[in-house]
């Protein structure tokens, strides 16, 4: 797949009309979180939010991701539990008298489409127990694992499915 190397990406007006309000809303939300109930702040806030939304549109060419609410409800507890486990895992390994590690590299092909979903997948891998995404090439993710005895493959599939549900990716796509 060709890397996306264009600097700015101008989308059509129709696209703009569809995606701008959402971004605007999201950034307004962030602004609200930052400043709180501050009416006067919107004098600066409004242009800033507009600017941020425009910049964000310029930078992201791909159609926005859509998040399913159900998926989110399932993903967030899963993620929190897993990342806590990963912390405990690391703590156990680091604090034991001799570090119990048995690292190695595993290669995994994901069915997630390229773009936001795949990047999200790669990023999340690093926060799960015992795995660290070390490379991403097409759909092959090289994963560094701290313990080869762990069921890496199953963990990955689990995560992949969660993300697929979260981002509304149909999992029936060809899976190698």
């Amino acid at each position, binding site marked *: 797949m060709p*890397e*996306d*190397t264009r*600097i*700015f990406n101008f989308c059509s007006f129709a696209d703009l009309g569809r995606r701008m309000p959402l971004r605007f809303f999201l*950034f307004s939300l*962030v*602004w609200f979180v*930052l*400043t709180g109930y501050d009416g006067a*702040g919107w*004098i*600066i*806030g409004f*242009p*800033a*939010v507009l*600017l*941020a*939304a425009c*910049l*964000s549109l310029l*930078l*992201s060419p791909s159609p926005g991701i859509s998040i399913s609410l159900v998926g989110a409800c399932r993903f967030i507890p899963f993620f929190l539990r897993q990342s806590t486990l990963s912390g405990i895992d690391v703590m156990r390994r680091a604090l034991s008298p001799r570090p119990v590690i048995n690292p190695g590299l595993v290669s995994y092909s994901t069915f997630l489409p*390229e*773009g*936001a979903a*795949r*990047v999200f997948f*790669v*990023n999340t891998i690093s926060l799960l127990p015992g795995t660290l995404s070390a490379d*991403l090439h097409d759909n092959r993710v090289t994963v560094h694992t701290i313990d080869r005895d762990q069921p890496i493959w199953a963990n990955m599939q689990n995560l992949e499915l969660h993300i697929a549900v979260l981002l509304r990716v149909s999992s029936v796509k060809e899976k190698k």
Partner: protein
Amino acid sequence: MMMSKPGISGRRRFDPFLLLIFLLVLLLTLILARAVCTLPMGGEGLAGEVARFQQQSGVESPVTAVLLNFRGYDTLLEVMVLLLAVIGVWSLATASFVKNSFATSPVQISVVRLLAPLMCLVAAYLVRQGTHLAGGAFQGGAVLGAAGVLLLVTELPWLSVVPSLLLRIGLLLGPLCFLAVAILCMFSGRQLLQYPSGEAGWIVLLIESACAVSIGLTLASLFAGGRPGGDVSDD
């Protein structure tokens, strides 16, 4: 360790000159330390003065009041120092937006897409906070500059895309705005930079916003390390 070239920062031989310098520096340290310890802590300083005129300054944050109102002249000159640094850098080198031999990771690109607009937003937030809490043009400008640096590092060389004239206008926006306000203030019998009473608030905010934009652009241009757009052939 390995990066150093032996001749450049290798272990030095004993050097009597360095020993002498070392002794002198030691002496200086002692003198300064003694001065720091024994000098009176100087009482209030100007805290009382600042607090007294805080109301008139138009902003609630004392530091911003000092920077943009009481001692705005300093700040005006200081913005010029930033501009001078850019001019100096531009006069020295051309920015080569080198394509790296390795492709940028898609992870980095996606993260930047998320972070860069957020940085712009936070920059504006800091400018806004400057009027009543910590923050202000420099802090906001710095975060804005960081956003620019982030884009440059990710090889989205936006600086080379922006038309030269536009870039220069952006760089000058803050200084020119500040200077124009300073000069306009002189009309109708006031002094340089003496804001009309009661209107200082929004003027300060205006200057701060313009300066934040300029400072952000300035810092990003400084990072780019040279004038964009190849040779002198612009205008």
